[in-house]
C-alpha cells in the first residue's frame, strides 16, 4: 500500500488540479445518483399521501420534479467530465512516468543496461507501468469518492429520515465495504502476484521461443519448448481462477451488503411510521438511497481483483521514482593537456566480480593522436575489457585511464562521448530507416554526409540497391546481414568524428577485400584520430601502426 501511495503521490504531483477536479466530480456523480433515486421515491410517496388525503392541489409538484430533471441531466454531464478528466490526468502522468524511467535508466551504469537487454526485465518494466494506471482510476479515486458519498448520504438521511436510518445505511456501507476491500485485497494479493509472474514467464518463453526457434527446430526441441511456454499459461490460469473466485465472493458480499442496508432502512422506516414518528415519504428515502449507494460499492469489486497486481507493480516502480538524479558528472569540460597522449593507461588492474584471476594485471599503454594500435590476445584475453575501460564503460580497480592527459572520470559525459567513439563487438541497431540510424549519431547531418559515411565503410552500394537511406530496418536492425550490420555501426561512429576511435573486431564477417577497404576508408576519413582496435584478423593487424599483445 505504501508503494501504491508513493506512485499515486508522484502522479498527483504531476496532475494535481485535474485529479482534484476529477475526484470532486466523482463525488458529485455518486451523490447526485443517490439524491435522484431518493428524491424520486420521496416525491411519489409524498404525492401519493397528498393525493390520498385529497390535498393534491396544495402539494408543490414543480420544485421536486424540476430537481429530479436537474439531477438526472446533471449527473450524466458530471459523469462525462469526471471520466475524461481523470483518464486524461492518469495517462499524462503515466506517459511522464515512462519517459522518466527511460531517462533514469539511460543514466544508469553500463552493467545495469546490459542486464536490461533481457526480455524479462523489459517486459516487466513495460507491464508494470501499464498496470499502474489502475492505482488512481480503479483503486484510490473510486474508493475515496465512494466513502465520501456514503458519509454525505448518511448525514442527509440522518437529517431527513432520522439518525438511526442515516447511521445504519452509511455505517453499514462504510464498514462493510471497507471490510470487503481489505479482506478481498489481502486474499487476492498472492494469486495476483503469481498470475503476473506466470504471465511474465509466458512472455519471456514466447520471446525466447521465437528468437531461438531455428536452433530449437534444428535440435528437434520445438514442441517441447512450446509445451514449456504453455505450462506457464496453465499455472497462470489456475491463479486467475482463484482470483475470479475471490472477486466473485467479494461481489456477492457487496450485493448482500446493499440488500442488508436497504432492508434495515426499510424496517427502521416502517417501525417509525407505525409508531407515528416518521411520515411515509421520508421513510421511503432510506431504502431508495441505500439501493442507489450500490453504485459506490461496485468499483470495490474491481479494486479487490486489481489490488495485488497494482501493489506488485508499484513496489517495483516506486524505487525508480524516488528522488536522486543521474550520477553527477563533472560540469566543465577539462582542457586537453598539450602534447599528451590521446589515450594512456597507467598500471590498470581489472577483475570481473567474483572471478579468481584478474583480466588485466597492471596494463600500461600510450596511444598518440593519429596512431593506430591493434590489441591482440586469444579470445577472452581482455581486448574488449581494455576498450570498455577506455570508453568509460568500466572503471579500473586500480591505476588510471587518461584521455588527452585528463583522467576519464574528470570528463563530463557529453564531451567524453564527443571525443571517444566506440563500436562494440555486437553493436545494437534499432527499428527505423538507415537514415534514422545514422542521424542518431549526427542529428544535423545532410543526406550527402550520411551517404559519404556509408561509402567509407563500403556499405553504400548494398544499401543503395535496397532503397538507399530510406531502407527500413526491423527490430534490432533486422534485414541486414551480419557484416552489413557491423558496417552500419561503423558508419554511425564515424559520423561522430571522434578524436579517439575504439573498435572491437571491426571487420568480422567481412571478406578480406572489403575488410581492407573499410579499414583504409576509416583511416582516410579520420586522419588525425587515434584508433585502438581489438584485432584478431590479419587484415586488422596489418592495418595497425603498432601491435600490443596482451
Amino acid at each position, binding site marked *: 500500500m505504501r508503494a501504491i501511495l508513493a506512485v499515486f503521490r508522484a502522479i498527483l504531483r504531476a496532475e494535481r488540479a485535474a485529479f482534484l477536479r476529477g475526484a470532486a466530480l466523482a463525488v458529485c456523480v455518486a451523490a447526485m445518483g443517490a439524491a*435522484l433515486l431518493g428524491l424520486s421515491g420521496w416525491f411519489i*410517496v409524498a*404525492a401519493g399521501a397528498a393525493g390520498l388525503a385529497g390535498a*393534491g392541489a396544495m*402539494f408543490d*409538484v414543480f420544485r421536486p420534479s424540476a430537481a429530479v430533471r436537474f439531477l*438526472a441531466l446533471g*449527473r*450524466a454531464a458530471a*459523469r462525462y467530465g469526471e*471520466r475524461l478528466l481523470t483518464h486524461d490526468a492518469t495517462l499524462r502522468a503515466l506517459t511522464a512516468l*515512462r519517459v522518466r524511467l*527511460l531517462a533514469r*535508466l*539511460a543514466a544508469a551504469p*553500463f552493467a545495469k543496461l546490459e542486464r536490461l*537487454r*533481457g*526480455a524479462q526485465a523489459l517486459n516487466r*518494466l*513495460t*507491464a508494470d507501468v501499464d498496470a499502474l494506471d489502475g492505482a488512481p482510476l480503479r483503486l484510490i479515486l473510486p474508493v475515496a469518492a465512494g466513502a465520501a458519498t456514503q458519509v454525505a448520504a448518511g448525514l442527509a438521511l440522518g437529517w431527513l429520515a432520522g439518525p438511526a436510518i442515516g447511521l445504519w445505511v452509511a455505517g453499514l456501507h462504510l464498514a462493510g465495504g471497507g471490510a470487503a476491500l481489505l479482506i478481498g485485497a489481502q486474499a487476492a494479493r498472492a494469486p495476483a502476484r503469481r498470475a503476473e509472474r506466470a*504471465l511474465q514467464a509466458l512472455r519471456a518463453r*514466447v*520471446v*525466447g521461443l*521465437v*528468437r531461438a*526457434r531455428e*536452433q*530449437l527446430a*534444428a*535440435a528437434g*526441441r*520445438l514442441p*517441447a*519448448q512450446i*509445451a514449456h511456454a*504453455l505450462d506457464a499459461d496453465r499455472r497462470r490460469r489456475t491463479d486467475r*481462477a482463484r482470483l475470479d473466485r475471490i472477486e*466473485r465472493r467479494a461481489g456477492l458480499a457487496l450485493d*448482500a451488503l446493499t440488500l442488508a442496508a*436497504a432492508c434495515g432502512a426499510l424496517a427502521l422506516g416502517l417501525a417509525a411510521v*407505525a409508531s407515528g414518528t416518521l*411520515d*411515509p415519504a421520508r*421513510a421511503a428515502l432510506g431504502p431508495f438511497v441505500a439501493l442507489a449507494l450500490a453504485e459506490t460499492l461496485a468499483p470495490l469489486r474491481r479494486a479487490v481483483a486489481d489490488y495485488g497486481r497494482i501493489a506488485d507493480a508499484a513496489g517495483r516502480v516506486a524505487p525508480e521514482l524516488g528522488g536522486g538524479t543521474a550520477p553527477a558528472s563533472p560540469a566543465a569540460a577539462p582542457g586537453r593537456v598539450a602534447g599528451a597522449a590521446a589515450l594512456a593507461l597507467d598500471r590498470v588492474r581489472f577483475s570481473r566480480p567474483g572471478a579468481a584471476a584478474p583480466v588485466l594485471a597492471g596494463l600500461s599503454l600510450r596511444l598518440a593522436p593519429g596512431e593506430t594500435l591493434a590489441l591482440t*590476445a*586469444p*579470445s*577472452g584475453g581482455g581486448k574488449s575489457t581494455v576498450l570498455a575501460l577506455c570508453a568509460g*564503460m568500466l572503471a579500473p580497480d586500480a591505476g588510471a585511464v587518461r584521455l588527452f592527459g585528463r583522467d576519464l572520470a574528470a570528463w563530463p559525459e557529453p564531451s567524453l562521448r564527443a571525443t571517444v567513439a566506440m563500436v*562494440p*563487438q555486437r553493436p545494437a541497431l*534499432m527499428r527505423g530507416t538507415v537514415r534514422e540510424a545514422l542521424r*542518431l549519431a549526427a542529428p544535423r547531418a545532410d543526406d550527402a554526409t550520411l551517404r559519404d559515411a556509408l561509402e567509407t565503410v563500403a556499405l553504400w552500394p548494398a544499401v543503395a540497391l535496397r532503397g538507399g537511406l530510406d531502407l527500413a530496418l526491423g527490430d534490432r536492425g533486422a534485414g541486414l546481414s551480419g557484416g552489413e550490420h557491423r558496417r552500419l*555501426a561503423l558508419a554511425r561512429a564515424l559520423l561522430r568524428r571522434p578524436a579517439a576511435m575504439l573498435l572491437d573486431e571491426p571487420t568480422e*564477417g*567481412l*571478406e578480406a577485400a572489403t575488410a581492407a577497404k573499410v579499414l583504409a576508408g576509416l583511416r582516410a576519413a579520420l586522419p588525425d584520430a587515434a584508433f585502438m582496435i581489438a584485432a584478431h584478423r590479419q587484415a586488422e593487424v596489418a592495418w595497425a601502426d603498432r601491435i600490443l599483445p596482451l
Partner: protein
Amino acid sequence: MSVIPAVETSREMACDHGALARGTLDALAEPARRPLRRAAALGVAAGLLWPAQAAALAWALAWALSGALSDAPTGSLWNGAAAPWIALCAFAALGLARAGLASAGQARAFRAAEGLVGSLRAGLVERAGRGSANGSAGPGALAALAGEKLDLLAPWLTRYGPARARAMVLPPAILALALSQSWAVALVLLVAGPLIPVFMALVGIAAREASRRQMVEVGALNDLLVDRLSALPDLRLLDAQDRAGADFARAAEALRARTMAVLAVAFLSSTVLELFAAIGVAMVAVWCGFSVLGVIGWGGWSGGVTPFAAIWLLLLAPEFFQPLRDLAAAWHDRAAAEAVAAELAALENGTSRPLLGAGAAAAPLDGPAAIRWRGLRRGSIRWPDGDIAPGERVALVGPSGSGKTTLLRLVAGLDRPDAGAIEVAGRALDDACADAWRARLAFAPQTPAFADESLRRILTDGRLGTNAEADAAALAPALAAAGAAGVVATLPRGLLARLGESGAGLSGGEARRILLARALHARPDVLLADEPTADLDAATAATVAEGLLALAATGATLIVATHDAALAARMDRVIAAAGR
C-alpha cells in the same frame, strides 16, 4: 510428459485455423458457445427476479402510506399489520437469490472464457514457434499478443455475451409489466429505449475504428520501448540517449493523445445512453408523482395509478435501461476483442514462411546423407546447382549477402525455397521428412539466440543426464573441441548459467562456440556451421578447425559457410555462393 499436451493442442489448433483466418468473433467463440449460453441464461434469470423484488418493496411502502392514514388496517395477510414484514422478508430472500444466480452465471462465463482463450493461446504459441520471424511480427509483438492481448477476449466473452442476452430479454419483459400498469409509462420507455441502440450503433462504429488503431499502436509503442531499452548502451556511447528519449517521449505523447481521442468517443457514447436513461427515468418519476397526486387523470388503465403501482414503476424504470447500458459498456469490450481477432487473422493470413516439418524429435532419416540442390532460388538469390557426398568437407564462400547462411538454412529445412528442389539422403526434403532429416544434422548458426534456459540444457539439447557432474563430464570433449571450455569456466555458475536471449554478456564468438560445442556434442551425420571461426583469434580458430575436422574424421559431412581462408583451405572442396 510435457510433449503430449502439445500434440493435443496442435489438433485443437487445426480446427481453430479457419475461424482465425476469418477474423470474426463469433467464429472464434464457437467452441465455447453452449457453456456461454447457459451462463447468459443464469444472468437473465437473475434479472427477471427484480420485478418481484421491486414489488415487495413497493408493497411495503404502499402499506406504510395507507397504514399511516387509516389506522385500522384489515386483517388479511396482504394488508394486515404483518404484511410489510412479509414483504420485507420476500424482498431480502429474492435479493439473495438474484445475487446468487448472477454470481453463478459469472462463474460459468469465466470458466468458459478461460478455456477458450487458453486454447487460442496454445494455437498461437504453436504457430509463433513454427512460423518464420522474417515475414511476421517481431518476438515482442507476438509475446504481447499471446499474453495480455489475448486476455482482452475474456471481457468480451464474460461481459458482452451475457449483457446482450439480458438486453434482449429484460427490457421487453419490463415493458410488458409496465404496460400492465400504465400505457403512459410504457410509451415513455418505448420511445427512450429503442433510441439507445441507434445511438449505440452510431457511436460504436467510431469507437471500434479508434480502438483498433490504438491496439496496433500500443503494440508498436511497447516494441519501440523494448527496442530503445535494449540499445541503451550503444545510445549512451553515441551520446544519443537524450535524442532517443525525446523521440520516445514524442511517440508516447502521441499515443496518449490518440488514446484520449478513443476514450472521448467511448465516454461520449456511454454519456448519451445515460442521458436517455436518466430522462426516461425522470419522466416516469414525474408522471407517477403527478398521477398519484391526482393532477393527471390519464395514462393508467383506469385513470391514474395506485401508489403501489407508482413506486413499482419507479423501481422498474432504471432496470429497463440497465441491460442496454451494460451492453453499451460491453460494446467496447467487443471492439477490443475484434481488434485482437483482426490481429490474429492478420498473423494467420500473413506471408509467414513456416519451417519444414514440426521441429520435433524424430527417428533419423535412412540412407547415406547425400545432399543435392537444383535450380534453387530464394528471394533475389540464386545458387548454382550443387552436390555434396556423404562425409565430404565443403566450404561455402562468397561476399557477405551472397546467400551462404540462407543456403545452410534451406538445407536444414529451416526455410523454404521460392523455386528449385533440395534432395537429402536420396529423397526430396519436405514437411514429411524434415524432422527425420534434422535428427541427423546439427546446425551452428552465425547469430546465436538462446531460449530462456540453462546452458546445460542448451548443450545437451534438453536431454539432461543424471546430474550436473555427469553432464559436465559428457560435455567436456565437445566444449574442448569447440574451444569453448574456457568460456564456460568464466561464467558465474558454469553449466548452470542461464544465458537468456541475449547471451548474458557472452561475446558473439563465445556464444557461437557454445552452440558449436552443442552441435559437436550431438555427434551428427551432417554438421552445418555458419562462420564457426568468426570473432576468433588464430589460435582459437585453429582449435575450432581441428574440432570440426575431428568430427569429419568420424565420417560426418561438414558444410561450413566462412570468410576464413585458412578454414576454407582445410576443406575438401570450396563452393562459391555467387548469389544475386
